[in-house]
C-alpha cells in the first residue's frame, strides 16, 4: 500500500458563519489576507516536504473560489512541489477537465511537471464538485461526456510523437496537436480518475486507470470498487484486479495517545463542518443526472427543504469513524481500522490521507504525518503489496455484526 499526504491548502480564517451565505463561490475575497495566505503556502509546502522525508507520497487538488482549498491552479503548486522535493511521487487529483476548456493545455502542463519532477507525476482527473460550475462558467449538462473526451484526448496527446495530429470531436477541436515537451514517463504518466457513480467507475476500470474515491465510507466505497472491478473484467483485463488500481481518501490522524489523536481528528473534521454551501450552488440542474436527481427527490421528499442541506450537522469524531471516513487513534488502533476497512471494500492499494485541515496547526500536522509514517505505514506496506488482488472479501460475519452490518458472509455483497 502506498500512502499519500494530502492537504487542501485551506484558508481557515473565516468570519462567524452567520455573517456569510457560503464558503464557496460568493465569499468576498477581501476576507483573504495575502500575507497570511503566503505564510500558509510556505507552511503547506513544508509539510509536503516533511511527508517526503518520512517516505510518504504527495497529493494535491484544485478548487475554485473557496476557502476550503486555495489552490485554483494546482499545476502551479505541483510545479513548485516538483522543485522542492526529489523522491516522492506527486499526485494531482485532479485536473477538472470537464471545466477546463483547453485539454491540450492540460496535457502540456502535466508533461511539463513530469519533466520538472524527473518523472514523478501521477496525473489525476476529476469531474469536480457542483460548486465549481459557476466559477468555471461550465455547463452542468454533459460534463461526463466532456470529461471523457478530454481525458482520451490528453492521453493521445501524451503518446503521439510523430508530429501534429488533429482532433475534431463533439466538444473539442484542434488541427495541429504536437506538444513540447512530451512526458518523461512512458508511455505516459499514471492516470487516476475519481468518481463515485457506478457507471463512471466501470468506465475507469475498463480503461485500467487508478480509481480514487473520497470519503465514501464502507458501503459507498465498496460499491464503487465493485463497479470498477466489473468494468476491468468486462474490458478483458483479466480476472484479477491488483489493489494498486484502487485508492481511498480518508481523514487520518495518528497520535501517540488516543486523546491526542481525537483532538487532531476533531480539527480535521473542519473539512466537513465548515463547508457551508447553499443548495442552489450544490445542485445545479444536470450535474447529478436525471435518474439520480429523481431518485434523490423521491427519497428526500420534504426533508430537502432548507438552504444549507449539509451544514450545521457538526460531524463528530465517533460518527466519522463509524462511517469509515476517518481513521484515528493510536498506531495500533489506526492499523486495525484500516485493515477492517480494507477487508470490507475488498482491498485498495492507495491511502490518500487528508492529514491537514482547518486549524490543525503545523506541529500537530507533522506529528500526525510522522506517527503514521513511522508506526502504521510499515505494517500496511508489508501486509498489502500493490500486487495483491482486490475483490477477495474476507470479512467474517462476526466482524460485520460487530460493525452493525446485518449480514456479510465471505463474498456476499452487502448492497
Amino acid at each position, binding site marked *: 500500500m502506498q500512502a499519500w499526504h494530502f492537504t487542501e491548502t485551506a484558508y481557515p480564517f473565516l468570519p462567524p458563519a452567520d455573517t456569510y451565505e457560503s464558503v464557496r463561490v460568493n465569499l468576498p475575497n477581501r476576507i483573504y489576507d495575502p500575507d497570511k495566505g503566503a505564510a500558509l503556502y510556505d507552511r503547506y509546502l513544508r509539510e509536503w516536504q516533511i511527508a517526503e522525508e518520512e517516505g510518504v507520497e504527495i497529493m494535491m487538488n484544485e478548487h475554485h473560489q473557496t476557502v476550503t482549498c486555495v489552490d485554483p491552479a494546482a499545476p502551479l503548486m505541483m510545479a513548485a512541489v516538483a522543485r522542492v522535493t526529489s523522491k516522492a511521487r506527486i499526485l494531482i487529483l485532479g485536473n477538472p477537465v470537464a471545466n477546463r476548456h483547453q485539454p491540450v493545455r492540460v496535457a502540456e502542463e502535466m508533461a511539463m511537471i513530469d519533466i520538472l519532477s524527473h518523472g514523478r507525476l501521477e496525473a489525476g482527473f476529476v469531474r469536480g464538485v457542483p460548486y465549481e460550475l459557476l466559477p468555471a*462558467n461550465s455547463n452542468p449538462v454533459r460534463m461526463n461526456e466532456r470529461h471523457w473526451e478530454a481525458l482520451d484526448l490528453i492521453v493521445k496527446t501524451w503518446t503521439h510523437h510523430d508530429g501534429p495530429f488533429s482532433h475534431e470531436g463533439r466538444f473539442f477541436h484542434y488541427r495541429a496537436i504536437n506538444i513540447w515537451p512530451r512526458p518523461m514517463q512512458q508511455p505516459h504518466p499514471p492516470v487516476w480518475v475519481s468518481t463515485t457513480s457506478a457507471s463512471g467507475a466501470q468506465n475507469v476500470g475498463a480503461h485500467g486507470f487508478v480509481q480514487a474515491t473520497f470519503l465514501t465510507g464502507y458501503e459507498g466505497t465498496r460499491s464503487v470498487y465493485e463497479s470498477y472491478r466489473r468494468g476491468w473484467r468486462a474490458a478483458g483485463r483479466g480476472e484479477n484486479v491488483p489493489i494498486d488500481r484502487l485508492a481511498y481518501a480518508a481523514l487520518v490522524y495518528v497520535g501517540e495517545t488516543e486523546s491526542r489523536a481525537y483532538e487532531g481528528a476533531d480539527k480535521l473534521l473542519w473539512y466537513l463542518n465548515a463547508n457551508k454551501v447553499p*443548495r442552489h450552488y450544490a445542485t445545479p440542474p444536470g450535474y447529478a443526472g436525471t435518474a439520480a436527481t429523481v431518485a434523490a427527490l423521491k427519497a428526500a421528499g420534504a426533508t430537502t427543504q432548507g438552504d444549507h442541506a449539509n451544514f450545521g450537522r457538526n460531524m463528530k469524531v465517533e460518527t466519522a469513524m463509524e462511517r469509515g471516513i476517518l481513521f484515528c487513534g493510536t498506531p495500533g488502533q489506526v492499523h486495525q481500522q484500516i485493515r477492517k476497512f480494507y477487508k470490507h471494500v475488498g482491498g485498495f492499494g492507495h491511502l490518500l490521507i487528508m492529514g491537514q485541515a482547518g486549524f490543525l496547526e503545523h506541529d500537530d500536522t507533522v506529528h500526525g504525518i510522522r506517527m503514521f509514517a513511522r508506526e502504521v505505514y510499515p505494517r500496511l506496506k508489508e501486509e498489502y503489496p500493490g500486487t495483491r488482488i482486490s475483490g477477495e472479501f474476507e470479512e467474517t460475519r462476526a466482524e460485520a455484526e460487530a460493525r452493525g452490518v446485518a449480514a456479510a458472509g465471505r463474498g456476499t455483497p452487502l448492497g
Partner: protein
Amino acid sequence: MKKETLKVAGLALEVFEDGRGEPLLFVHSGGGFQPNEPYVALLAKSRRLVAPSHPGFGHSELPDWLDTPDDIAYIYLELMDRLGLQKVDLVGSSLGGWIAAEMASKAPERFRKLVLVAPVGVKTGPVDKLDIPDIYAVPQERVSQWLFRDPAKHTVDTARLSDDELTVMVRNRETVAMLVWEPWMHNPKLKHRLHRATMPTLFLRGESDGLVSADYLERYARLMPHARIETIANAAHAVQVEQPEAFAAKVLGFLDG
C-alpha cells in the same frame, strides 16, 4: 387535447394539438408545455393550436448534438414543413420566445404575426451586468418571486408527482440549464439577425416580471422593425399562467386585429 409523437429531423418530438381555425404555433417556456393550463383552452377556442415539447422537454428526445435554441428553431421549421403549415402565427414564451425569435429571423416569410412573451435571447445591456438575473445563483424561493407575483399559488409538491411527472420536471430543468448556461440566456448572433423579422410583432410582459425587465424588452423590441410592447397587470414572468384571460385576450386581439 391530441398528443402524438412525430419524427422530425431524426428525433422523436411530442406534439400537442387542439382546436380549429387559423394555425397558431405555441413555443413553450422553460417549465415545459402544460396542456391543462387554462390559457391553452382559451387559445384553442378559436385557433388550431400546435404546441411541441422542445427536444429534452416533456417526452421529446434530446439528440446529443443539440445544445442551443438556434438548433431547436431549425427543428421547428422542419416540423412546420412536416405538418404542412406554410404560414402560421407564432407565439413564444420566455425561453420559447427566444426560440420563436430565432425562427422569425431565419424564415420571416413563414410567419404572419409574432408574439413574444417575456422573451430572453439577446444581450443588449452593459458587459458587466447580466441582462437576465442568474437563476442558478440564488435560492429557489427568490426565483419563484421573479416568476410569479403570487409564488405560494404555484409551488409544486414533488411528493405528489408520479415518477413520470418527476422525470419530466427534472429533465426540463436540465435542458433549460444546457440551453441558457453560456452565453447566459442569449445568442450573440441573434440581435444581428432580428431586423429580418419584419412581421407585426407584439411583446408582452407581466408588470412584476423579475427576470425580464421593461428596459430589456424595450431594447429587444427596437431590434425588430414592427414591434410594440404591452404590459399585463398583476403578473410576473409567467404571464400566461397568472393571468390566462388577459393573456389570451391580448394575444388573440393582436393576432385577429
